[in-house]
């Protein structure tokens, strides 16, 4: 028996299949009626329209569902570390940090589910994972996240990579996470940010840099630190901590005496470097096409990235519409847990009133934004997300949702859902048998469809 899930569709169904594929890859899956709408427009035309759609204002509260007006808070815990008052303050702050964390993660999920700006939300998630910061780095980190989400990720998600890179480098959340805020030529520079900048954010691990480059980049960023600003924190360049000596980065000389602009020169150089284009093109192709994406798509995308000066829309255009790979039935992706949860809520038309239930499932599935344990973020590979334990969590989520036991989710419309419409046309015989089980209620049929192997693909 061969796989039915990846069998090319019948010619008559091709337009529908392409619509579903586009929605699965760019929009966290279809809501009821989406496939028909996109089929009518044509999948490629729909992708082009989404690529051209203006990004929403970064702080727009454009959702009916949870509106989270706390963006812009940012407070560093104060007080002497050992005083009783400081302890009490820390306790209070920890409670508040939990609240902020829940709000920011809930807003991510709510926006993904709402579908108002699907490709934009997909790219916010992508960049958030690429420029990952860890909410549990320490108490201040959480308080810096709302601004990081708004001023770095949302502001630049469909803009220019170089701007995004600079915004991330100078943001207190990144300076704190990767320790650069303490990097001082007087006490010794800290290499943490420099290394991750080269390996993860720009050139890639095989991007052709050496330990000497890491050291030079770390010196270039010495003195990039934080200062208190009102209740929050802001970027600050501290000349007394900067190493003003000459640096050589990737063979290019940064003359002595420059100061703050050393770091900016490094970022410019890295943003324009061919290894960065290649690294990002490959990562985007893994996100949108396949775990092992076709070389021609990667090469084409890297070329456009470079030619356009790192323009994200132009780069995505080359990737998604510059070839046929997006609509190649042989190129299969497995949904990450975040995509799985968002797509189930969308597919069933469930209303997300409060995020706790859905976020709890994501925590158990090991995939919450801002909570990946390493600076590398979460991988977007099937091998990372398919195992018996993950299968169990997905089954549990599907049944909780369909039986109305998922806290914060209103699934009243679920009775109206056609389980076959959730999966598409290519059913494995086992799934067909499961859906035909005698005595299965409508809601359980929906759960079985959501837990099916077919629904885990996008």
């Amino acid at each position, binding site marked *: *028996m*061969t*796989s039915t*899930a*990846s069998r090319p569709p019948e010619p008559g169904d091709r337009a529908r299949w392409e619509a579903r594929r586009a929605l699965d890859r760019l929009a966290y899956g279809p809501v009821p009626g989406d496939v028909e709408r996109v089929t009518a427009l044509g999948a490629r035309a729909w992708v082009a329209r989404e690529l051209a759609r203006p990004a929403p204002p970064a702080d727009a509260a454009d959702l009916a569902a949870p509106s989270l007006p706390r963006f812009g808070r940012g407070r560093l815990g104060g007080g002497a570390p050992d005083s009783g008052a400081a302890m009490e303050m820390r306790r209070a702050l920890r409670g508040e940090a939990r609240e902020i964390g829940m709000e920011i993660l809930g807003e991510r999920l709510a926006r993904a589910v709402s579908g108002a700006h699907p490709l934009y939300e997909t790219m916010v998630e992508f960049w958030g994972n690429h420029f990952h910061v860890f909410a549990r780095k320490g108490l201040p980190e959480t308080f810096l996240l709302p601004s990081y989400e708004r001023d770095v990720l949302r502001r630049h998600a469909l803009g220019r990579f170089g701007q995004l890179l600079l915004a991330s480098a100078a943001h207190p959340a990144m300076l704190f996470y990767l*320790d650069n805020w*303490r*990097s*001082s*030529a007087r*006490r*010794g*520079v*800290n*290499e*943490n940010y420099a*290394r991750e900048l080269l*390996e993860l954010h720009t050139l890639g*691990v095989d991007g052709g840099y050496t*330990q000497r480059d890491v050291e030079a980049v770390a010196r270039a960023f010495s003195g990039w630190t934080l200062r208190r600003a009102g209740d929050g924190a802001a970027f600050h360049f501290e000349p007394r901590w900067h190493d003003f000596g000459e640096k050589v980065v990737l063979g290019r000389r940064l003359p002595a005496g420059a100061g703050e602009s050393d770091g900016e020169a490094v970022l410019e150089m890295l943003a324009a470097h061919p290894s960065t284009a290649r690294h990002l093109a490959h990562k985007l192709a893994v996100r949108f096409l396949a775990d*092992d994406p076709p070389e021609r798509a990667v090469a084409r995308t890297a070329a456009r990235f470079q030619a356009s000066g790192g323009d994200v829309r132009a780069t995505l255009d080359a990737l998604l519409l510059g070839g046929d790979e997006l609509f190649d039935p042989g190129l*299969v*992706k*497995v949904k990450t847990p975040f995509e799985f949860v968002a797509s189930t809520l969308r597919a069933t038309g469930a209303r997300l009133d409060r995020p706790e239930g859905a976020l709890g499932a994501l925590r*158990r599935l*090991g995939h919450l934004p801002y909570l990946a*344990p*390493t600076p*590398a973020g979460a991988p977007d590979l*099937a091998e*990372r997300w*398919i*195992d*018996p*334990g*993950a*299968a*169990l969590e997905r*089954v549990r989520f599907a*049944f*909780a949702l369909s039986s109305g036991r998922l806290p914060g989710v209103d699934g009243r419309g679920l009775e109206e859902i056609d389980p076959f419409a959730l999966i598409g046309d290519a059913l*494995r015989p*086992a799934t067909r*048998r*499961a859906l035909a*089980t*005698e*005595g*299965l*209620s409508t809601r*359980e*049929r929906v*759960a*079985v469809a959501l*837990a*099916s*192997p*077919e629904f*885990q*693909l996008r």
Partner: protein
Amino acid sequence: MTSGLTRPMIDVTRRELLRGAVGALVVAHVPLFVRPAWAGAAGRSPLLVVVFLRGGADGLALVPPLGDPDLQRARAELLARAPIELGGAAGALRTGVSFGLHPKFAPLVPLARDGRLAAIHAVGWPEPVRSHFEAQDLCERAGARPGGAVEGWLARALAAGPEPPSAFRAFAAASARPRALTGDPRALALESPESLHLPATSPAGGRALESLFAPPEAVERSAAARFARAGAEMLDALSALRAHAGGALRNEDAFPRSPLGTQLATVARLARADLGVAAAWVDAYGWDTHVRQGAEEGPLAHSIGDLAQGLAALVDALSNRTSDLLVLVVSEFGRNAAPNGSGGTDHGRGGAALALGGAVRGGAVYGAWPGVRRDELEDGRDLRVATDVRDLLAEGARHLGVRDLAPVFPGYAPRPLGLLRTRA
């Protein structure tokens, strides 16, 4: 999938499991795929627990050479006073070097005294790798090509060893399956046994899940089939767990109330049950101490205390199979000899590892000692790597009964460290 012989039996228990998914059910069958653990006096079976310290643990703080003036010069502010004396290096380049443990390892003192604790120093990857991601990846693949069928060294060791497959032959007490187990078709990640149960369904719902996750034919290789296969494994594992996992541990309270404590307690519970556990993996976080790591106290001391308390509780909980037990505590690299400007340490090279349990020839520090005088350090800043981390992992594979290490560590012939007691 498993052999045809065991399949019908699995179906029986699975059906029972699913029928009883709502209420409590006493499973009368002992499924064939659950191997009776250490049945009989002669039937000893090894148990390997790997605790991976993610983030690059500071080996010079964990296992400091004692009274070393060079180390004193390099990092006085990071050296904890009153270290626990451990012993001399078995293969030291220089005689007379003796080592200690960070004082927060105090809960392990009884083990050390019994000769069931050893350290391995200057361990790491031979090429200079200083990124967490890359170094962990190299340690966990241990020579296998990325993207290959069985990427994880532990998955390969289990496949090469004599321990029969079972739902819980290997598992990770972690939020996610580590790379080291990638390629093992069954290994689950679970934070606690309670976290592993099916949702309440009607009897029809249970039957539907059974159909949905009917084991796909071996030739079906699509991503969907891969998920279906994972679902089939999951149903098998659940029925095994239901039939065999015991309740609370006698010394539940001895485990620290921390993520690591919970994970180690999970290892103890499953390893005590008749589930055929041969290998367990635990991920420990919080070792990437770039800032103010402290000496006797501080974030690093706190992590060490958490680890020590958890390990002591684990060994105690498994006292019924002490001689089966080998715990390896390993990290992706060590850290700089000298502090950075933030009172922390940056990514270095050689690190320290620990081995505990009845299988260990303890009371010694294994591996050559390259020294920490400035001119002995790599690039003038890092303890050199004297022992390839694969030599240490190979001791784990040997403990699992692997005789031919070649397929486990492609392109590398591990050197025996002599860490293991000869098994009776």
